[in-house]
């Protein structure tokens, strides 16, 4: 990436150092704790799936049982390893028996550090083999796709019914979409379980379930053959089931997951301890599965003013980067987020947008940056909206963003009609062609508005990161430094699912994933 903005390298390095301290400061806290969602994920990775007679997911049944009857702090792996050893049954069968109250895990709670962990490993290996296979299928299909220099066009489907979503997704892919995101039902982030099976209901989207993942993947794969290009699938590993959904996505070959270290805290009022612990494991899983994460900094600008608070986006990108690094994630998987949200009534708004986008590109050259369209200042005037989106498209192509989430002219009216999406793709494809090498042709005046704006934002981000490092991230979140929303360390949802690990606690699958990521030797 060439350097057009002449950003100060020292300042960028200093931002990274501050962000690293902020993230490292919390890493020992993260390492000492686990959550109910992390434990449920371990069960899923042991191959446990399905629901009990009351429709409750088996992994929830097991954890409810454990929470009620035994010492959670030793972790579910401790109990399952003893159970598998003594019963000689599979984790799935044991889970079924627990759900029907014919197996009691509490008998192992006073047992010492479990010597039978290796008996769980074959079950974990089975799941890892599935994930490995998905990795290699993706790699193979991607290598058969012509690599393009322009951004990947990303659209959402949000009908609230997986079968309608599939029709809309197929139309979008035919119209040139490279990435399809299936929006979840509003409110799923606050469910402390993952719904089961194919779903045909929801508000503003339908549920993220493993079966919905599989159905959509299968549908898109049929088109990959016809279109001779890979079509990526996205969902949300966020909310109270962050790592569980990451695991389901890894198994069903999703290619991207919305996954932010701070978003749930700020915008869904999920407890910060819970979120930070959950995001760690979820990112390790995505890292292992080669799934790109998308962070949610764009959301800050729907609440705060996009011009005045641009630096909070950059500061948060630095923090998300460090949390991802702590989860052994490659930069190529860090889809850091930002957005085109400056008030269109502002003079030179396009210049400031371009400055921000170009700045992000130069600071995070390897990251598949995710660029979000105007939403806050979309008015219902669809014709003006189409032009706002076109300008956004120009900024995206010119500054070489990677993941280009297309705006809809009917934003602020309804979840997109099939035709809204088609219009958006037509316009974006036009801009993509017309401006293909525009970014390579232009330079910016060294003392001009664009360069100056980028420098200002970087400087402000540096000061903000210094303050956050001094006061600590928890305190900063309490002060409402992001999106002007204040959250308390012990407030929010899901804190009751956080626990301190016992000295005998083990999470063997996380340890194994980390080991293999480090060796990068799991590509078989």
């Amino acid at each position: 990436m060439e350097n057009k903005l002449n950003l100060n390298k020292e300042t960028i390095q200093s931002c990274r150092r501050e962000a690293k301290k902020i993230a490292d400061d919390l890493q020992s806290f993260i390492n000492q704790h686990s959550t109910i969602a992390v434990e449920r994920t371990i069960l899923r990775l042991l191959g446990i799936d399905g629901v009990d007679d009351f429709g409750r997911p088996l992994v929830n049944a097991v954890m409810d049982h454990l929470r009620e009857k035994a010492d959670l702090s030793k972790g579910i792996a401790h109990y399952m390893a003893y159970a598998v050893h003594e019963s000689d049954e599979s984790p799935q069968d044991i889970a079924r028996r627990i759900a029907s109250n014919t197996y009691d895990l509490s008998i192992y709670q006073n047992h010492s550090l479990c010597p039978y962990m290796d008996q769980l490993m074959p079950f974990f290996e089975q799941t890892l083999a599935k994930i490995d296979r998905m990795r290699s299928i993706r790699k193979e299909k991607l290598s058969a796709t012509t690599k393009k220099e322009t951004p990947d066009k990303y659209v959402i489907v949000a009908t609230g019914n997986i079968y309608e979503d599939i029709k809309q997704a197929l139309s979008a892919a035919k119209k040139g979409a490279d990435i399809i995101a299936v929006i979840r039902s509003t409110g799923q982030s606050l469910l402390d379980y993952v719904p089961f099976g194919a779903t045909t209901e929801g508000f503003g989207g339908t549920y993220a379930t493993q079966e919905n993942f599989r159905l959509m993947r299968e549908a898109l794969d049929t088109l990959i053959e016809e279109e001779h290009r890979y079509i990526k699938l996205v969902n949300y590993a966020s909310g109270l089931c962050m790592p569980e959904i990451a695991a389901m996505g890894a198994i069903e070959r999703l290619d991207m997951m919305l996954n932010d270290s701070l978003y749930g805290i700020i915008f869904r009022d999920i407890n910060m301890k819970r979120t930070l612990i959950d995001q760690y494991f979820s990112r390790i899983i995505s890292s292992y599965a080669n799934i790109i994460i998308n962070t949610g900094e764009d959301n800050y600008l729907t609440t705060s003013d996009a011009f005045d608070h641009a630096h909070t986006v950059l500061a948060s990108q630095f923090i998300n980067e460090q949390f991802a690094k702590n989860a052994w994630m490659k930069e190529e998987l860090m889809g850091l987020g930002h957005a085109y949200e400056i008030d269109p009534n502002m003079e030179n708004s396009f210049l400031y947008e371009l400055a921000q986008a170009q700045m992000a590109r130069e600071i995070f050259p390897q990251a598949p940056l995710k660029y979000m369209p105007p939403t806050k200042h979309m008015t219902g005037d669809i014709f003006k909206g189409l032009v706002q989106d076109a300008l956004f498209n120009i900024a995206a192509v010119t500054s070489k963003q990677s993941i280009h989430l297309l705006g809809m002219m009917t934003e602020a009216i309804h979840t997109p009609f099939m035709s809204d999406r088609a219009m958006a793709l037509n316009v974006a494809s036009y801009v993509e062609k017309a401006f293909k090498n525009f970014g390579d042709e232009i330079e910016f005046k060294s003392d001009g508005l664009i360069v100056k704006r980028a420098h200002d934002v970087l400087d402000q981000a540096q000061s903000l990161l210094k303050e956050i490092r001094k006061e600590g991230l928890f305190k900063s979140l309490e002060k409402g430094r992001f999106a002007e929303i204040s959250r308390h360390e012990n407030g929010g949802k899901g804190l009751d699912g956080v626990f301190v690990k016992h000295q005998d606690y083990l999470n063997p699958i996380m340890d194994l994933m980390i080991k293999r990521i480090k060796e990068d030797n799991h590509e078989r």
Partner: protein
Amino acid sequence: MSARPTWIKPYGDTENDGKVQLSFSLPIPASPIGEEAAKKIALQMGIHDPSVVHMEPLSESFSYYIIYGRTEHQIDLSSLSVTQTDHLVMSKEEVEQFIEKTFCEPLVFVGASTGTDAHTVGIDAIMNMKGYNGNYGLERYKGILAYNLGGQVNNEDLLEKAIELKADVILISQTVTQKDIHIENLTQFIELLEAENRRNDFVVIIGGPRINHSLAKELGYDAGFGPKKYAFDVASFAVSQLKEKGVKLKR
């Protein structure tokens, strides 16, 4: 109204030409049959001489049409009436003066986006300092204490908080809704207020892209505000209403 009938029609470039544009998709492939079907649908809608100016495939089984034509329908303006909030709309400064002149204590506004709705863009536009489109939010109003509880707030929690904060006004925002869940949710809140015998303790106002004043009245709210309404609209109504109710009046 006894006014003389005034008939009007959509206007393209000539009085009473009735020109309209419309676009829609059909669940069939783009084809001459598709084009004909689109025309027939327009005719059934009362559009004469429909002209399909654009047809485009959306997938192998869907197609898209843009149509221009002349509508046969016309409307007698004198027969129309709309329910509107009939209070005086004041600017921020005027609201502040009104409060200072009228009330003896600060007015407490509690707001939230309720139910499953996680979108706070509406409630933020009305309540947060910054406001929207150059119109400051209630947090910046002198004489108003504004508490924005954010998104996905349960009706029960909203009421509890309103009681705790001694709210005079409750604001509810509903942004993203599907299959009319917002109606259900809004109805439930009024029922809750009534069950707790609290309906008269608050001025209760709703807002959102699919809300209007008549809907609000129908559901039992004091007022409803749709798109393009700002903090000063909401505040003007609320302070007028509180004065009428005799809340916190200066003696």
